[in-house]
């Protein structure tokens, strides 16, 4: 455990936040079912659990956004008083960085700070905001390319996430004392994620506290001093990090996830691959039944290459009954789900042309198709007519997988589809993809996570918008991918 070095006048080990038997019930749903936890200065609490375990609810209770239906939340204010509620949470210096990006795309980076910092008013507020965000960005992500005057909507996803994290740690009228990071690294590449992790360590060493939520267990082990495991709205294990092992954590979460893709035997599958069915001018190629990975640091042209390929094979006028390419979105909110549609409608969307009968949708056929895929990939809902947003992130992603796979398209393009998806769902998805590939489908899979890239038969590593390496078989490993992503980087910049 780290020694707190004192923040404010309070006793160093008095907890900043104390939850006592907090409960949140939405009707019959018990999102939080009696959680007690404390966070003291200097602590970094790793909070893990699969999607729907209640982490987000816990976060909203801790930051004051949600009033628990039972139990208590107390904050220790800087002047030693005790408080509760949203205003006191803010006065206590509790900041949250949410999983779904919560910036306003029409504002500039410095203007975004105005939304979170209430004291930014009056003449000269822009200068103050600019100073704060620039300082925080430089501190956490040295070498970043973000100007405070840039519009958020024009930043890449990774840059937006960096801005949000920096805003969470930035100076304000009340300095940040507890920063809650919900999946902060989901769209960051490894190098930037590392910068964040080391900043968390320094922040905690100076007496700050952090709640770190991530599906990447390696990161949690790197930064957390204590790990709490959540399941079904409760904390089922809470121990110092040193007493956990990765396998122990996964077991505790209740998912039996294989350590590594044991089922895949590299090389053996290769003989079954068919003829080349895809070749792009920039050098991407895929054969029938092959899983092709696009790797490299985030923002080096992978998503662009996928989009270019996809656009070149689709988007023609007129209805296509047999699409050549299907697409699985990673940024669900932006190019995945139809937020006000039901799960059923979302699932059958791309399949509608073949479900059409004399210009009308064949309702029964639609239901059969949806029911079939629901059981095939295990979408956890009792009614496919529920709104898509009633599902957890992982299950929404399953719907998107089903939407793409239900089509007859021989090629499936996947744009970092496992972003923010829990370990168990990931394993199911890997299995699904392997089965489909064995059935003759080809996959183009962009991923920011090395573990996923290692599932592929062939990997193209991107650097600065071009393919810098093509790896196959046993050559697909973390070292080779990293080498190809970083090579020349020192010389170039």
């Amino acid at each position, binding site marked *: 455990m780290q020694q707190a070095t004192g923040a404010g006048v309070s006793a160093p080990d008095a907890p900043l936040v104390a939850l006592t038997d907090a409960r949140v019930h939405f009707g019959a749903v018990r999102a939080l079912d009696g959680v007690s936890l404390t966070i003291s200065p200097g602590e970094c609490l790793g909070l893990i659990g699969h999607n729907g375990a209640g982490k987000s609810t816990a976060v909203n209770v801790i930051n004051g*956004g949600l009033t628990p239906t039972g139990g208590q939340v107390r904050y220790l204010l800087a002047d030693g008083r005790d408080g509760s509620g*949203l*205003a006191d949470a*803010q006065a206590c210096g509790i900041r*949250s960085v*949410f999983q779904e990006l*919560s*910036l*306003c*795309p*029409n*504002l500039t980076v410095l*203007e*975004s700070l*105005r*939304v*979170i910092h*209430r004291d*930014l*008013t*009056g003449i000269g*507020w*822009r200068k103050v905001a600019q100073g704060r965000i620039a300082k925080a960005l430089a501190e956490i992500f040295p070498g970043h390319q973000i100007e405070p005057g840039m*519009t958020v*909507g*024009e930043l*890449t*996803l990774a840059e937006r996430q960096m801005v949000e994290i920096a805003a969470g740690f930035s100076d304000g009228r009340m300095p940040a004392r507890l920063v809650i990071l919900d999946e902060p690294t989901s*769209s960051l590449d490894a190098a930037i994620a590392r910068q964040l992790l080391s900043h968390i360590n320094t922040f905690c060493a100076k007496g700050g506290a952090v709640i770190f939520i991530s599906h990447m267990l390696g990161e949690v082990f790197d930064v957390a001093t204590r790990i709490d495991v959540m399941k079904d709205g409760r904390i089922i294990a809470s121990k110092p990090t040193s007493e956990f092992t990765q396998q122990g954590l996964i077991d505790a979460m209740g998912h039996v996830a294989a350590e590594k893709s044991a089922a895949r035997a590299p090389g053996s599958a290769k003989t079954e691959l068919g003829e080349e069915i895809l070749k792009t001018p920039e050098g991407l190629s895929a054969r029938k039944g092959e899983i092709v990975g696009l790797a490299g640091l*985030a*923002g*080096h*042209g*992978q*998503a*662009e290459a*996928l*989009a*270019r390929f996809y*656009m070149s094979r689709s988007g023609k006028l007129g209805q296509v009954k047999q699409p050549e390419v299907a697409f699985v979105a*990673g*940024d669900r909110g*932006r190019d995945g789900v139809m937020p006000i549609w039901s799960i059923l409608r979302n699932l059958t969307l791309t399949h509608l042309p073949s479900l059409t009968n004399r210009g009308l949708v064949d309702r029964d056929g639609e239901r059969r198709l949806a029911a079939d895929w629901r059981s095939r990939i295990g979408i956890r809902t009792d009614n496919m007519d529920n709104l898509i947003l009633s599902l957890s992130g992982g299950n929404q992603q399953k719907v998107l997988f089903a939407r793409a796979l239900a089509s007859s398209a021989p090629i499936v393009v996947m*744009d*970092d589809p496992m972003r923010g998806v829990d370990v168990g769902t990931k394993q199911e998805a890997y299995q699904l993809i392997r089965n489909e590939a064995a059935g003759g489908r080809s996959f183009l899979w*962009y991923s920011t996570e090395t573990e996923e890239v290692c599932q592929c038969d062939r990997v193209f590593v991107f650097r600065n918008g071009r393919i810098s390496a093509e790896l196959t078989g046993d050559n697909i490993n973390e070292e080779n991918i990293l080498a190809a992503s970083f090579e020349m980087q020192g010389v170039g910049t």
Partner: protein
Amino acid sequence: MNGKYRILLPVLSLAFLLAAVFYLQPRAMSYFGLNLLFNLAVPIALATIAQMMIMMVNDIDLSIGTFVSFVACVTATFLHDTPVLGVAILLAAILAYAGLGALIHIRQLPAIVVTLGMSFVWGGLAVLLLPSPGGTAPVWIRSLMTVKPPLVPMAVVACVLIAGISHFLIMRSSTGTLLRAVGGNAQAVARSGWSVAKLKAGAYALAGFFGVLSGVCLVGLTTSADANIALRYTLLSIAGVILGGGEFTGGKISPVGAVIGALTLALAGSFLSFMRLSPDWQIGAQGAILILVLAVRLLFSRRNRKWKEAAQNG
């Protein structure tokens, strides 16, 4: 980069139209000519700013035309006869706008329906006030609208002032930033502890305020009012905002662009008169100009956006 295109296109279309008008009618290139060209654009610009406030928070106001007509009727009657009562009525109208904003947010009503309904309310009130065209403009507004500043005509000065003030209010001030944030991501604003209902009420109140200014200015120019005097402002203001680089959703707006958009629309009318186009065809031709400009804008932004968004994940 996108932000720069956003303002470039309205400026170019205005310059193009202006050049065309000057070519057709060189005498318009004078103090008097410019004032005549842009005179009636001042109330349109104010109404466009009002519309922009609503579009800023992802709503749309279908009642702005009848609201301006109503204000014009109040100005030509109460504000002239009993100024105190007139001011009170106009303040109440602004409050009503604020109330509508809060109502729309709290009840989650579609703004398009509520404002469509309100357009009948304002229109009805206007007819009650002035069943037939008439009334008198208060002397002070009449003299304000006909003032002759040196070098640059009043209409141009007024438009620059409107653009400057609304730009400062919306784009630079901290409150304006917060209002735009509501359009960008209302959920994030709410999560940071702000009351979105209050912010929306504020945006609607600003719209009401600029709507009132529009009506008062209009009467200053026309000297009398009519219950149907500004009906076409509803569509003109929406078109002006869009022409000026604004968008229907996402809080993407530009006050300077909106004023320029309003000027362009006003100029389009004059341009067609100079072309000796029969008035029967003018509305259609105005629409054609609008479509043309928007098509150019689409070409500008489309390629840009498509690849940007595609690359965003990377």
